[in-house]
């Protein structure tokens, strides 16, 4: 059993690490810095953390101003707020100007299970991906958060990182993350499962179960949704007969849209598990929500079996 680690804590630690390397790194938050762990950067000095109050639109445009005056801002809030609430500010102040502003969407997907549909982001990947100049990351574990934060700092343009509230198993080694990096966590057999974030771990569990039944399902973590690694994904899929996509996001506009677009014209059976164009809801725990929306390891296992039957 792999060790679990918090991606939120990893985000805070990563800010401190890159903040030591680069004195221009500054973190902003809209009264959720204790939850996103962005406040951790205060270890480097009070002025390195900017409490903006509950004003996400201002936070996005402030970050643009900081980037325009030589800083490397990282702003964070829950994913619904840091993306949707500030969408036009991200579009106009940040993306049109192509600034090195880095956005963190925390408690993303269904992971804020208790707070319900207003707080569960099922659209953040879609609305960030559709913006020209934006780069979009979905880390698979805490180590990858660290590598991605450094890549975001170094990349001279806007970027978005999606962080879940829950801890996840550690499946990658510490180290640099290359934009567009594809992690083949289990080699492809007759099936290739493309997933991102927490869904990768459920896909790994499903793959293990299926191997007992004689079905070899590879598991690929796609940590960069944009720019999407089209050629690499096509190459990986060409070795399989069936492709299954899993994401904790609306089936419209997320990982699945990117994978299916990349695989256009290939002779493959394809299935896609995601949230079927609906909002979430409150639940007593995270797992029951995954069951409700058909995103558990068992669901993945069943869908792969059906696809290959």
């Amino acid at each position: 059993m792999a060790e679990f680690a918090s991606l939120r804590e990893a985000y805070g630690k990563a800010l401190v690490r890159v903040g030591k390397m680069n004195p221009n790194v500054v973190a902003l938050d809209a009264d959720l810095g204790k939850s996103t762990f962005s406040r951790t950067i205060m270890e480097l000095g009070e002025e390195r953390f900017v409490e903006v109050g509950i004003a996400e639109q201002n936070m996005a445009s402030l970050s643009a101003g900081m980037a325009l005056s030589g800083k490397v801002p990282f702003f964070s809030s829950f994913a619904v707020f840091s993306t949707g609430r500030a969408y036009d500010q991200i579009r106009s102040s940040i993306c049109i100007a192509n600034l090195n502003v880095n956005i963190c969407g925390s408690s993303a997907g269904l992971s804020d299970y208790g707070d319900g549909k207003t707080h569960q982001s099922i659209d953040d990947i879609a609305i960030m991906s559709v913006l020209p100049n934006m780069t979009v990351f979905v880390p698979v574990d805490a180590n990858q958060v660290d590598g991605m934060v450094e890549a975001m700092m170094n990349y001279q343009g806007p970027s978005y990182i999606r962080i879940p509230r829950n801890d996840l198993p550690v499946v990658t080694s510490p180290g640099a993350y290359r934009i567009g990096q594809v992690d083949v966590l289990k080699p492809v057999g007759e099936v290739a499962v493309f997933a991102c974030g927490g869904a990768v771990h459920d896909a790994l569990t499903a793959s293990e179960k299926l191997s007992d039944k004689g079905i070899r399902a590879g598991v690929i973590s796609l940590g960069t949704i944009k720019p999407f690694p089209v050629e690499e994904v096509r190459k990986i899929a060409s070795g399989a007969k069936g492709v299954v996509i899993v994401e904790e996001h609306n089936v419209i506009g997320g990982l699945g849209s990117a994978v299916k677009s990349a695989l256009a014209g290939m002779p493959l059976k394809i299935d896609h598990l995601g949230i079927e164009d609906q909002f979430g809801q409150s639940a007593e725990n995270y797992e029951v929500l995954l069951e409700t929306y058909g995103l558990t390891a068992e669901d993945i296992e069943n869908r792969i079996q059906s696809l290959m039957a």
Partner: protein
Amino acid sequence: MSAQEELILHLKKKSVLMRMDLLEMLEPGKVGHLGGSSSMIDIIATLYFHKMNISASEPKNPNRDYFIMSKGHSVPAQYAALAEAGFFPKKEFRKMKTLGGMLQGHPDMSTPGIEAVTGSLGQGLSVGAGIAYSLKIMNGWSNQVYVACGDGEMAEGQLWEAASFAACYKLSNLTMFLDQNSLQACGPCSEVMCIPDLAAKWSAFGWDVIEIDGHDLAQIINALNHDSGTKPKAIVSKTVKGKGFSFAENVVGFHNGAMTREQYETARNDLESLWEELN
């Protein structure tokens, strides 16, 4: 002539030249934001040709002062100042808002001297506050940041988020000009969305507020020189939409309208007469 009188004459001449530049950008029949550009001219002339530390040869000098046109549709007034200051040649004026032109319809980073993308209203003060925070709080520098907002723009809630932030963080290096020309796209500001007592509102948000006639150069200079202590400064400036273009003054239709050939010639004759008076 006193130094102050000489300065004012110098700025008056710049203002006339900049209004003439607007004519170059907006030939007869070409739709553009003449009203809100002309109401800002005297303020922008004072900033670019008296107050701000800027240099066309080093547009990205870290010691420079910053100007952000939050009411981005009035960017022709800034284009006029930038060209007069040598940031780009005046031959670009005629290509404004044409395909591949350097001068976009709203402020864009591709234009030398433009500091931020604006146009979606309400965002420029936040951008300016972000710059002001970096310069003052993080760097400990004394550069100044100037932002121009419109009175129609005051309906954008984000401005008030920025107002709180700037006062809370004591951004005394930030100055906001409110171009109070009292008209917006669909009519008088008071009818589109009544927002009374703007000066009192900015004061209540913790800003040092100075009320002036935005076409009186001495008042603009004095307001800029006023020491606001640790507060950010709001210069609430009564202006005339279409100022200097007799047919356009206080006319809603010139928020974004086109001049006829006759109106264009009238404006040119008026401005040339004014120029001769000043020389």
